[in-house]
């Protein structure tokens, strides 16, 4: 029954875990960057667009939100190349998936942010004679960023955790690193204990840093 913990094997292969953690972060950062772009553009289109456009955006959001991420990962990696003539490696395919996935969640975040801006601010912009583009870049965008920053950090942290799903298509991120150690050394408990600790520490560190950032951006009392 007894199980003797032996972390030596894990430390010997720690480069797999450390490299994996860095790749996890990289995947999360690239995906949220693209996701923010998708979310912002679609949120603006949703706010200013017609019925038809809104329907299409709603269909995208609802589809992505109601399907398991792992299925989307398989679909993009194994399914899509059968239909269209594209070739990508596993990591690229995962970034595509996670970007489209996060985009669907971020549309809602941005939309809520845009709608939460007091109308008086936009009117004030008009009164000052700002062009629509100036109103967007210097009134709506900064106001919205302040409102959505907490939701954005939460999305980022949950995306960081979601990168673990990339292991199913053998992207060498953190969970894959733990699996590799498990398969090659059979130090199962140790590998997953270390992986768990790394996810926890990184996650809470990110949370701490993002909360600091949010406080810096908080201008005025109401925001």
């Amino acid at each position, binding site marked *: *029954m007894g*199980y003797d913990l032996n972390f030596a094997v894990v430390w010997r292969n720690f480069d797999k875990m450390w490299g994996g953690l860095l790749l996890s972060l990289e995947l999360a950062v690239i995906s949220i960057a693209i996701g923010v772009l998708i979310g912002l553009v679609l949120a603006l289109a949703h706010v200013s667009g017609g019925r038809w456009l809104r329907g299409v955006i709603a269909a995208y959001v*609802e*589809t992505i*939100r*109601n*399907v*398991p*991420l*792992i*299925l*989307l990962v*398989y*679909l993009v990696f*194994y*399914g*899509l190349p*059968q*239909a269209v003539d594209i070739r990508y490696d596993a990591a690229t395919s995962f970034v595509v998936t996670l970007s489209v996935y996060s985009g669907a969640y971020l549309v809602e975040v941005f939309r809520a942010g845009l709608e939460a801006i007091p109308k008086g601010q936009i009117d004030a912009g008009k009164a000052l004679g700002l062009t629509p583009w100036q109103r967007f870049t210097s009134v709506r965008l900064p106001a919205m960023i302040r409102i959505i920053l907490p939701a954005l950090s939460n999305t980022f942290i949950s995306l960081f*955790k*979601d*990168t*673990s*799903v990339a*292991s*199913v298509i053998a992207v060498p991120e953190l*969970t894959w690193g*733990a*699996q590799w150690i*498990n398969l090659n050394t059979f130090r*199962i*408990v140790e590998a*997953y*204990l270390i*992986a*768990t600790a790394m*996810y*926890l520490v990184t*996650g*809470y560190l990110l949370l701490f840093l993002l909360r600091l950032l949010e406080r810096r951006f908080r201008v005025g009392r109401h925001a």
Partner: protein
Amino acid sequence: MLEQIVYAIPFLFGGLWVTLVVSALTVGISLVAGVLLGCALIYGALPLRLLVRLFSDTIRGIPILVLLFFVYYGFPAIGIDFDAFWAAVTALTLFKTAQVIEYLRGAVQSIPRGQTEAGMAIGLTFAERLRYVIFPQALRRFLPPWINGVTDAVKGSALVSLLGVTDLMHSINQVIGRTYEALPLYILGAFIYFVINYSLSALSRRLERRFSFMQA
């Protein structure tokens, strides 16, 4: 494409059933455990509160996938042995329990303190206060996010395929293993998950509207 989908459907019923059973067990057990632990977090003694807080923050801080592997591969090594199915249910339930704890905490703490004080003033015991004063009001705040979270349980259950549990996701991969037609099958799978989850979120929106008079 339609032909392959029609061919595959009979093979998926078993898996769909397992997906629904895993989700239902997860949701059911976590509801009971989460409400109990949630009460412990709000009303318990300090050591108990810290313990529940630690549990909830740890579980919510790691990916479900890692939790799943941890329970499946790690628990047998320390003497707790179960098959893939129960390992999967245990891991998903642990995760969901942590969420339910937070929903409950949010719901109960949204109720003004005056309500508890009023309950005390008319001589209700602790159990009576919970039963007649706090829970009926907290339910309205608790239900919408909880039902929304049920879709997370259904989506999360797709990960159990990685432990070799033949759920919907796994049976889709099995059919693809035979036919090598990935795209139609994954689209079919996405559609089935969509139908289940969309119905659940439609239900949650209806409930949210029903209980929206509480928002003020």
